């Protein structure tokens, strides 16, 4: 492989890692604080992608995309709040299965709603940052670099939120011991709602940012969800750094996996083989928290 090819696949892997990190970070944040696996996370991502495409196509490429992104994040955040108040509050502390089923039911409702509102057809939207950069004989979409930069900014933002704000301090305290936090006078109920809204908004942000880079259809929810699971599990559920590392691993594996001939039975399986291997060696993932 020439250095130019290596760069091509690396940038491709980083672009995958970028939007997958944004989605997985939301999933992981919610799990860390609420101890709930949100099966509806992919559905929120799908809603945001569709909303972005529709708004952007209405208002015209360029500015329309940014408006779409804002609308999408606002809508997914709001849906997240509704889900938390109406469903999750009733299943905290119950068996994992009930929590999985509750959020799974929500995902069915949301995905069904998407199919009714937006139909079953694939949709696309023009990139808000068009153009290509040519390096070493290969063309790179400028938007790929935007996605990578956006992921870095969001990673920094989430980190700052967790380690530099009161909210973040409370979230970390809730991860460690919600009852103790509650007894210190913090409204844990409201904190949970806030965390879930942030998590949902991150799913929305991921969906909005990914919209210009691929065709948006009504099955992208489960496709992204299973990858987000893989990332959070490889990195360790509840760990933001873990999500970043996991996203890099999964992004690179998907990107370089294209090199493997499709006839090989393991072409698609690599991500999950790595996930299995990580869990066998480290049952809580690379940066995982112990289960309470």
């Amino acid at each position, binding site marked *: 492989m020439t250095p130019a090819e290596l760069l091509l696949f690396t940038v491709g892997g980083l672009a995958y890692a970028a939007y997958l990190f944004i989605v997985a970070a939301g999933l992981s944040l919610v799990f860390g604080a609420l101890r709930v696996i949100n099966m509806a996370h992919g559905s929120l991502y799908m809603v945001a992608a569709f909303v972005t495409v529709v708004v952007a196509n209405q208002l015209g490429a360029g500015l329309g995309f940014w408006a779409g992104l804002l609308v999408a994040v606002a809508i997914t955040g709001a849906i997240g709040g509704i889900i938390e108040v109406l469903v999750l509050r009733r299943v905290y502390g119950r068996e994992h*299965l009930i929590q999985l*089923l509750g959020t799974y039911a*929500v995902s069915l*409702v949301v995905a*069904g709603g998407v199919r009714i509102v937006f139909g079953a057809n694939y949709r696309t939207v023009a990139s808000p940052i068009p153009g290509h950069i040519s390096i070493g004989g290969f063309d790179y979409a400028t938007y790929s670099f935007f996605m990578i930069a956006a992921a870095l900014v969001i990673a920094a933002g989430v980190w700052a939120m967790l380690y530099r704000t009161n909210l973040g301090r409370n979230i970390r305290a809730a991860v460690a011991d919600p009852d103790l936090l509650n007894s210190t006078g913090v409204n844990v109920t409201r904190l949970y709602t806030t965390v879930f809204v942030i998590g949902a908004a991150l799913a929305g942000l991921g969906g909005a940012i990914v919209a210009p880079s691929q065709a948006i259809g009504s099955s992208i929810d489960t496709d992204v969800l299973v990858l987000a699971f893989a990332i959070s599990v490889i990195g360790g559920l509840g760990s933001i750094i873990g999500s970043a590392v996991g996203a890099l691993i999964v992004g690179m594996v998907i990107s370089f996996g294209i090199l493997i001939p499709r006839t090989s*039975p393991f072409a698609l399986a690599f991500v999950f083989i790595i996930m*299995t291997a990580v869990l066998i060696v480290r049952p809580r993932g690379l940066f995982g928290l112990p289960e309470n």
Partner: protein
Amino acid sequence: MIRLLPRIRSGRVRWGVVLVLFLFAALIPPLAGLNENLNPDSSARFQIFLGTSALVLALWAVSYNLMLGYTGMVSFAHAAYYGVGAYAVALIFKRYHLPILVGLAAAPFAAAAVGLVTGLVAQRAVRLYFSLLTLAISQVLFSIAFTWYDVTGGDNGISINLPDQLNDYTTLYYFTAAVVGVCLLLMFMLVRSPFGAALLSIRENRQRSAAIGINVRAYELAVYTVAAMFAGVAGGLFVMYQQQAYPETLYWTANAQPVVVSLLGGTTTFLGPAIGAFIYVVLDNSISKQFPYQFDIILGAIVLAVVLAVPGGISDVPSVFLRLRERFRRGEEAEAPPLESAGEAIQMFDVRKALASEAIATEEVHSDQTLLRIEHVSRSFGGLRAVDDVSLEVKQGDRHAIIGPNGAGKSTLFNLLTGQLKPSSGKVIFDGRDITGKPPHVIARTGIGRAFQITMIFPKLTVRQNLQFAMLAHGGYTVRPFGIANRMFSAQAQELAEAVGLGAWADLPAGQLSHGDQRAIEIAISLALGSKLVLLDEPTAGMSAYETDKAMELVRRLATERHLTLLFCEHDMSVVFSTARTVTVMHQGRVLTAGTPEQIRRNPDVQKVYLGELEQEELGA
């Protein structure tokens, strides 16, 4: 309500429901034919086809519920084993040109083999991480089916044409019904057997299960493999009526179907998921015909309603209905179940019955012989040596107390003895066997019964079952996949329940009893059949002075007259000095001293340790 429910569910009514179900299943083809005659729009063939798919879904869901409802495992890989069965039938029939029944016979073995190997991998993790690991496994299997064109046909899958004998819808329906019926019967026998009892114990409380001698991981792997095997049969039948095997059947989202179906029908009953399967097929067909786009939303809403309002599924509806009726009739106060214990058990402890009970070990005792020897055992957590070079001996028939201030290492020492923790160094010899670092279930089987400091019972099982299952596990009967667990040791369990004053509540779920009564179950489990050494970790925690006296009197007399050896730790000094013959004092992880109660009482070091603690408590408070 509690009193009504077992009656409604049990006996003739239950079997009546089963009979109606089977009659309904048997009559689907003629009913469909009749319907076609009366109503020209409907197609009998289509309805029989739907009936076949419901039967297969029923088998698949019931096999899933072996893990979900009976063992408490959530797997995302069950669809993959269904898919393995489907591909096995399709490949053997199409590629190797063998009769389709050969394929159907091979399907369960193929699925079980894949299930066993992948189950071993998935077992590296527990609970949530186990579920996520099965998700990864399922995606690996899906990827193989999707991309291995030469064998699986890739995304096209494999199509087959059934031989003429089976190509008739009605024949295929009855053939499917027969296979599903046999599989259901086998699974029913399994869940009623002592093996099934072990599964229920694991669902209720993993740690307690290990402490009564159940090898939790082995049973989980076994049920995982058995479930995969029956899923393989379901997958094989699926190929026969669908005449195609394709990779989407293995995709992780496909697992939603058996889960939703189990939930709809109820995970706590054997046939619940089968009923759920028929409900699901009817719903799916009628809703998606009328509202093709809304099916997901409606299904989601139904699942949500079941999760939030009726966690037990359809089979739980009678109890929800009864609860509502009670509430309407007598207002809010009617919430409290009429039959509930209020901590009377200990007052009713019946020493005479306990002494006569067969369920408590009796052996010749040589009080000069050592039953348990701990040699230089240490255990550190990070830099802290919680147990530091502890040696002690427990003679047969002795009543040995371990005392010491909080943090002295008493509970850690108990956990080292029963295998919850492994010693960093040192040896534990019990009854002549080296049990150092052995897992809890092995140690339990050598004859150590333990009552935990925190109540560790099986909350949804009845009081009698709690004791019965402990006896089954102690005796090593839980490997049996046949027989009826509820009929084994029933009399002994009842006798033991009566001895600890719980005779009247033997049929109540243990979790509904009051704290004191649950402590009585805890003690009874540790006494149940075969415990040569009974370990009691603060047996009277949370009891009143009167209850403490009663409980300790029972324990003391049992130990004396039925030759039990006791090792217990306790904070209440009056209990210690009235019960123990030997006392070991621990302080900061080490043995401070040991001797008779009288020696200990007069030991100045012991007085200093306890006085020191008092001073610290006063300063800290």
